[in-house]
């Protein structure tokens, strides 16, 4: 994408850096980048590249540790979706599409299914709706580990939150960007046509 900021105007002062000085020369993200706001920035791209995996791991940590420490499915889901939002801000909508593990609708459906099944499963063994089954095991490396069915329920919540945020970002962010791009392309076409007309 050669098109860089149309609002920047021509730099006048001698001290101002040249336009596009921030743009990185290496590729840091998985798609050709056209960020959501303003020109490309090497700082942002490198930071996102470094941060996203750790943010995702942290979100899973929040999900798993939720029962004994602050966290849980809702907070974990928010953190995970923040990772995708970061990618979107740094890399634009194609980066968002590339980074999405699944469509938002699939995430929503999967999350609902997971928590619904977890809720209903105890009914079959004669338990109450949403009854929690748990089991503590001694694992070689991790020591004493607790498994409980609410983790599956929380994972469902996690997926739904990620799906919610992604669909809102896709709707309010990416879609608007695409529309703007379409409008810009249309304007360019019209300009080209009117220029070519008289010749």
């Amino acid at each position, binding site marked *: *994408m050669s098109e860089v900021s149309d609002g920047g105007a021509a730099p006048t002062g001698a001290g101002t850096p040249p336009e596009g000085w921030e743009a990185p020369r290496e590729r840091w993200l998985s*798609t*050709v980048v056209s960020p959501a*706001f303003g020109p490309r920035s090497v700082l942002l791209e490198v930071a996102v590249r470094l941060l996203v995996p750790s943010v995702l791991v942290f979100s899973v940590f929040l999900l798993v540790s*939720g*029962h*004994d*420490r*602050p*966290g*849980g*499915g*809702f*907070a974990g889901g*928010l*953190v995970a*979706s*923040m990772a995708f*939002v970061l990618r979107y*801000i740094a890399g634009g*909508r*194609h980066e*968002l*599409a590339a980074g*999405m593990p699944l*469509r*938002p*609708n*699939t995430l*929503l459906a999967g*999350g*609902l299914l997971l928590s*619904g099944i977890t*809720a209903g499963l105890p009914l079959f063994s004669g338990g109450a709706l*949403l009854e*929690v089954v*748990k089991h503590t095991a001694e694992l070689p490396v991790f020591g004493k580990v607790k498994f*409980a069915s*609410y983790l599956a*329920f*929380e994972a*469902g*919540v996690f997926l*739904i*939150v990620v*799906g*919610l*945020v992604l*669909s*809102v*970002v*896709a*709707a*309010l962010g*990416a*879609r*608007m960007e*695409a529309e703007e791009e*379409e409008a810009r*392309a249309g304007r360019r076409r019209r300009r080209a046509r009117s220029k070519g007309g008289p010749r």
Partner: protein
Amino acid sequence: MLLPLIIALHAAAAAVLPPLVRALGARAFLAASAPLVLAAAWALAQAPAVLAGNPAASRLSWVPALGIDLDFRLDALALAMVLLVSGVGAVIFWYSAGYFRRSERGLGRLAATMTLFAGAMLGVVTADNLFALYIFWELTSVTSFLLVGHDDRKEGARRAALQALLTTAGLGLPMLIGFVLLGQAGGTYRISELVASPPGGPAATVALVLVLAGAFAKSAQVPLHYWLPGAMVAPTPVSAYLHAAAMVKGGVYLVARLAPGFADTDPWRALVLAFGLATMLLGGWRALRQDDLKLLLAYGTVSQLGFLMLLGGMGSYTSAVAAEGALLAHGLFKAALFMTVGVIDHQTGTRSIAALTGLRRRMPVLAVAAGAATASMAGLPPLLGFVAKEAALEAFLPGHAGELPTWASVAMLTGIVLASVLTFAYSARFWWGAFAVKPGVEEPRFHRPAAAFVAAPVALGALSLVFGAYPKALDPIAQTYAAAYDDHGAPYHLALWHGLSMPLLLTAVVIAAGAALFHWRAIVERVQEAMPRGPNAEIGYHFAVHAVYAVALSVTRRLQTGSLPAYLGIILATMLALPGVGLVRALVIGDAPLPAGNDLRLWDSPLEALVAVVMAVTAIAALREHRRFAALILLSATGFAIAGLFVLHGAPDLALTLVLVETLTTVILVFVLRRLPATFSVRPPGWPKRLMVLLSGAAGTFVALTLWLATSARTEPPVGASYTGAADEAGGRNLVNTILADFRALDTFGEVVVLATAAVAVALLVLLNRRDRVIDEPAAEAPEAVPGVPGPPADEEGSAR
């Protein structure tokens, strides 16, 4: 009992059918017919016991406290219906295997929906609880909506599907009210008990009228008949199944089911006979002028449904016998005829009478079988239709029907004879139109149909003949059903020969007049053309739908002004007007005691004061800021400060969530800000501004005051303390999360469902259906997308990714 299991088997089969269709193509319909065959075989196995007067029954408890149970009961009427729904249904499924091509769009969905429909219909005819019946009833409406709208790219199909759904399911709602009234009046929701000891009184009368409305809509009675011809856009096997054998019989079935208990309750009989007769005449008259063979059959079905309705609802011994006979006869011949039209359409590519000629020579077997079915429809001996019609004429002979005054039975008999003349004429026109050699028409070129494809209509046509020649085979079913009525000492039997009787004479008149009507069809056509067009029922439907739209639009226009300050103002004003005034009143008359001053502390830790100052400063600054972006940042600073307050009070969980939500909302709002002007529009000082300041100030004061009063008005110990022990027991040390995911998990589940719904709704509102397209664009250079063309449907994409 096996029945609930068989119904469940239909649902299970529907689940595995789409992949099966992908693997086998249309041949999967053969596998899909397995549950139907099973149901029919099961019903046949039960038949000896049922006919001996021992209905098979079973019960699955569902909501016993409300009288809602899945009761099933197989008696003689249900047996006949199961044989139609599952037996004839299975034949139609076999036929579908030859009818559809593998390339048919959405074939898997069609097969699955048809199987689901078969299961729901089986439930309708065997349910013995009003609520269970209603649920299966509406399931058939929904599946029929999907089936009629199968070709969802055609606007006509979508419109017809919606029309059928709105009519049948829309009038299903008053029927549900009628069911509740009936159950309340009778003290039970079991149909068999209600019919055995029917309740009386005005409530029961109202209930019956409402139930009849639902049954009339389902069975396409005038003036609600318009949806049935419209639904002919469905694929022909669907029409053969839904609109001949199964669904449209639902209303007739319900009337026949309730008639033994309620036929003598006014105004049951008057309504059923009047609407049935009107439907019979109108359907026959309309059928006479159709050019499309399928539409001709559709109007013929309307006419026959009127016939079945008045027989089923009449409520006498002979009419009950006739109703059972006609029910089976109609299921057999109408399904055979629809399938015949399907074969013709499939091979020649047209269903127009004007374009078909000479098919008699090219498809002789089909022509003979269709001839048998047509003769059954026309009521010619020795076919089943004749046997049933004889019984029907007998049922309304003056003097024989003690349930009706003489003038009424004379009127009914005249009407039925007239309608039968029309029926004969359109039957003759059907066979002539489909098979006869018409001079001056170019013969269509086509391939002969495969033998297996023609087998289904031929088999059903043959059955019409077999049962017509040997009606004794069906008589026990009819007798067992009619046993609920007084037989006046001389029970009527289904038979070919009753001696030289009045009905036989009437049949001769019908045949002669019908043949004349067919012979001079050119004149009849001219008369029909010259007749003034009466009020059209379909226009009434469109008028009603349009009125709903218009009202909804005008309400929306008045309520949704689109001004956010106005919405907020209304919300705040309501809050002040209702609870606010209540609070002031309680304070004035002393209902709400002011807390003693000493539990009001300045702060618990001086840090709180710092946070409060930050909050106040950012909030005021946000108010005074004219640039949107700056105002947004200030607002989120307020939010973060509140999170700080939570931390200070020892609620890290809450603080964490708030920080995350605050961050995300800020980011998302920034997306939106791109589309808005950089600054707020400046509001001139004046009354609107003053009012807003006043309102906001009052709302803030109210909230603060309420919080203070409410927290100090506690009389019981806080519930939170008791949770700590329980949380230890549940094995989680984070109390908040243990509550969310364990103690109150059902609440969480509900909220999560709301979240998911909101996500879908927001995306739809913003994108108007175009979200998938944006995400799917693979290349960096966006292709020139055409607006308004939706992306590929998600389900087909899913497997490819």
